[in-house]
């Protein structure tokens, strides 16, 4: 079951645009994650695929058939909601069976499917309980079981883990992933959590500002973000974006953050003014005296295996650097910041500038 979006648009009140020109292809059996900050329209997009929200323009295709005018039930899909949408007055078993009964399947088929689904999510022993007697994770599993029990091959999930605590979220992430693989579901998963997207997705769609920013595999998106937003959205701590200029003397030379840092490239810098993205682990920090220093430490966070150093360059730009192991700096201690080999370049509009050579910096 493949899903395609063709130039989908959504307006509210024929005024406010929520989504513009969204196109994407989701292959059968794929784990497709839509990610973006809250308010970016990702839930709306999911609801448009489900048929809960009409689209203003464009087409939604399921198995190459336009389904714009099909009601949700005719689209043969299931949906897992952020708050699980469980019926509080029904037992776990009845909740899972609800949709099957609504579709008027025969009794033994329902019995079989519900039992199987509950088994898949390890809830067999809770089947007689009411939702309020379950923990958050268990409720989430009931919602999953509902999707499992259905014969639909497309499953839509709307931030299904956001109500769980951190530990449980990691565990459920794996369970959902395993389930999707086992059942061969085509899964479209909406989240605002980039870690979820990175760890689970076959493909990620990044949404922001009513637009699709990028669609790609997790590594693609991390390594070759289409723009500053995508680069900033993925990776913790956040990528450092610093203003840079082509040196007037040497077009291979790049001056970053006023003239705190200079870097020589393998090829000519394509534009005079640009912005450089440096992942925190690509920054190196060393102690130095105040004459040599190009930055001062603000504070450090020790995470066990690595340390994050927050510092302010002389230019006033703030940076984050990740250093493995434990290092200790005093506040206002002068440091020297240097840059490693992996850099991203963005023009003033925030779009990434691809350079022809892989390794951009002289090692």
């Amino acid at each position: 079951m493949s899903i395609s979006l063709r130039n989908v648009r959504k307006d509210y009140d024929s005024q406010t645009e929520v989504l513009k020109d969204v196109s994407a292809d989701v292959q059968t059996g794929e784990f497709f994650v839509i990610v973006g900050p809250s308010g970016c329209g990702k839930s709306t997009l999911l609801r448009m695929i489900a048929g809960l929200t009409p689209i203003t323009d464009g087409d939604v295709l399921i198995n190459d058939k336009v389904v714009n005018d099909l009601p949700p039930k005719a689209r043969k899909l299931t949906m897992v909601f952020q708050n699980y949408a469980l019926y509080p007055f029904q037992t776990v078993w009845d909740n899972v069976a609800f949709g099957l009964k609504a579709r008027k399947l025969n009794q033994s088929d329902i019995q079989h499917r519900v039992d199987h689904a509950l088994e898949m999510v390890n809830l067999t022993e809770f089947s007689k309980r009411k939702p309020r007697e379950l923990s958050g994770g268990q409720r989430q599993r009931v919602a999953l079981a509902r999707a499992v029990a259905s014969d639909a091959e497309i499953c839509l999930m709307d931030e299904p883990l956001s109500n769980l605590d951190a530990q449980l979220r990691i565990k459920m992430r794996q369970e959902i992933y395993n389930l999707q693989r086992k059942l061969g579901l085509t899964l479209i998963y909406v989240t605002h959590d980039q870690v979820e997207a990175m760890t689970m997705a076959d493909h990620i769609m990044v949404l922001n500002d009513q637009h699709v920013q990028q669609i790609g595999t997790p590594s693609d998106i991390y390594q070759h973000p289409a723009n500053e937003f995508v680069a900033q959205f993925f990776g913790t701590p956040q990528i450092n974006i610093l203003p840079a200029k082509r040196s007037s003397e040497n077009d291979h030379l790049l001056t970053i953050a006023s003239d705190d840092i200079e870097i020589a490239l393998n090829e000519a810098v394509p534009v005079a003014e640009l912005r450089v993205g440096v992942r925190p682990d690509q920054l190196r920090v060393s102690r130095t005296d105040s004459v040599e220093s190009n930055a001062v430490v603000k504070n450090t966070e020790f995470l066990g295996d690595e340390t994050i150093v927050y510092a302010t360059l002389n230019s006033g730009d703030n940076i984050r650097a990740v250093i493995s192991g434990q290092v200790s700096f005093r506040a206002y201690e002068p440091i020297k910041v240097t840059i490693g080999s992996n850099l991203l370049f963005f023009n003033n509009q925030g779009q990434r500038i691809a350079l022809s050579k892989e390794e951009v910096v002289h090692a």
Partner: protein
Amino acid sequence: MLKSPATHSSTTPLASNDETSKATKSRSDFWLNAKDKYYAWIFLGPSLLILGVFIFYPMLKTLYLSLFLTNTVGKPTVFVGLANYINLLTSADYLNSLAVTMVYVLAVTAITIVLGLVLANFASKQLAGIGIFRTLFSATMGVSVSVAAIFWLFIFNPSTGFLSLVSTWLHLPQIGWLTDPTWAMVAVIITTVWMNLGFTFLILLGAMQSVPTTLYEAASIEGATPRYQLFHITIPMISPTLFFVSIITLIEGFKSFGLIDLMTKGGPTNATNMLVYRIYKDAFYSGNYAQASAESLILTVIIAIFTLIQFKVLEKRVNY
């Protein structure tokens, strides 16, 4: 507002306005729109029909009748414009009814609220077996007008009544409870307050119990006495409920009929001839539909004003 809505942080009530529910609201332009219209007729049809026939149409008919004179058999015959209203508002008799009703309504509301607060305050103490007292205090909610009237008519009966016996025992002067104009009003007020008390108590108790305990804990750490807590925490915190109960009591007071009919029949000498009883008497005793219709409209205006105030204030959710 009293009880915080029982929502999990995750639930998106249909009423809220954030992103997801906006998405839900967009069902408004869902392509099943045409079908929704058809369902709307089915779901709303019965109620609309009933309200139309028994609420809206009669209001217009009442307005119509009030502009005419009606004959012996209640048919409107002569158009007189606002004459019926002018007659009413210049008649000492009707103004007396208005005044009497105001006195009754205000007294009933004030006394009910104060007594309800007293009962609720005592019943919210944490004592063993307090549940029994709560149940008993709310008992008058189950009393209908005619039962209340019977109980109190016996109590107020001039010759064999309970109060007359008590005054005899205590050698107090006999009071003409239902025969003296002033005392008849007092008797009707007492009975109404008694009838209202259970409901008012229950609502106020519910409101008091939903005041967060931490407020009292904080106050008692700062050394506030129970009385201080009552006036500076409880009452301000339950003020929306107090307002709500007052308005309800007020509106119900304006609509009082049963007790008047059963206890005093508007007498003695019109001392308890309140608005609804007058409407009834003018229409169904004297057969003067036109005048009764005009009175009905005046009553409607009064009640509409108070209901509007209620809506407005509740809408703003004025708290403290």
